[in-house]
């Protein structure tokens, strides 16, 4: 039997972001399109979604250039760590999901991110099928 959440929101992207935000240590998350336009975000501890999107797009392009030279397909996910936190970047169709978490967050966050990606992909397939193959 499916449990129906009372406060289920229409914005499925925001639902996915809030689901990520429930995980301990997540400082922020953002979904933007390949032009860098923010589709939705969740902000804590000063996480600035608008600042992250151009950086991440540049990073994504640079990394895919090296993957191509290595004869590999484009990156499915990119993780960047500094001593205090880590950013995970995942391309979903024409969208990019970025999650920023502190370094104490356990690796099970990856599972949660995978579930959020499923939510976003399902929504994209239902509403914008041309954006996903």
């Amino acid at each position, binding site marked *: *039997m499916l449990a129906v959440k009372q406060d289920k929101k229409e914005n499925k992207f925001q639902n996915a972001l809030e689901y990520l935000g429930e995980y301990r240590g997540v400082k922020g998350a953002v979904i933007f399109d390949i032009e860098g336009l923010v589709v939705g975000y969740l902000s804590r501890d000063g996480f600035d979604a608008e600042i992250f999107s151009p950086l991440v797009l540049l990073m994504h392009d640079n990394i895919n*250039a090296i993957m191509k030279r290595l004869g590999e*397909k484009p990156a499915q996910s990119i993780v960047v760590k500094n001593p205090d936190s880590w950013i995970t970047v995942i391309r979903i169709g024409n969208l990019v999901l970025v999650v920023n978490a502190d370094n104490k967050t356990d690796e099970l966050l990856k599972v949660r991110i995978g579930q959020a990606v499923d939510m976003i992909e399902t929504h994209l397939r239902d509403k914008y099928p041309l954006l996903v193959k």
Partner: protein
Amino acid sequence: MNIDVSELDDRIAKCQTILDANPNSQIFAALAEAYRKKGMVKKALDICLKGLEKHPDYGSAYLVLARVFYDKGDYIEANRHLKKAISVSGRTRSVDLFEAEILIKLSQPGKARNILEKLYKSDPNNEVIKNLLVSLDREANRASAIIDETEKSESSLKKTYTLSNALSVIKILPRVLGVVAVARDGIVVEGHFDGMLSHDEIGALASAVFDGIKQGIAKIDYGKLYEILVESDKSKLWIINRVDYIIVIFTRDDVNIGSLRFKVNEILKKMKNS
């Protein structure tokens, strides 16, 4: 061990019925375990994680979670959750046995042997324990042969690695396809890479990626760049920032990155001037 699938299906149906009637029930752990036994580890993981959000002190669920990670081949996570299970619910013989199995996978045969020998003393006819002890003996013989060989080829190497030694050891780790160290100016210091590109090309490309990201994160005050991990559907590219150079490791996609990180960190710690 033969697993009766119909019995598992029956158990899953019963547990699911109970859970549907009472979503707060602790039956989720039994449900997850049944899915795990059926080979549906992702489903088992989802159920277990969801249940633990409601019952964060339920030891049996951590044990199931540990078994799920074990089945997934992520022995570090399996060990972590087993420890949590022990801290919440204490030890049993089956927990000790499982811990020994995990320690064997984590290449900690000494600790595994201690546990198994204690178990063997109190239950000398247990075939599982006997088989694990036999496999440990076999592994010990194989390991000593490898160590002898390594010592011969690295006779000048005592307790520390040079960069060249360290990269050689990293290169022979399971599923590692190549490793290079690249100086700040993009020149390859040392490398072992069997791919279609030259070391110099890899050095230049990795250096460009690293510098691009480093400059980008500097602009947003993200702090010092420590490492980058890129996953594609066939491979993983891991770039580690060191004091004088970056280390670029290229692996197959099915590498266990947690286990690789553990081994690489151990190797890098043993490097001179590390």
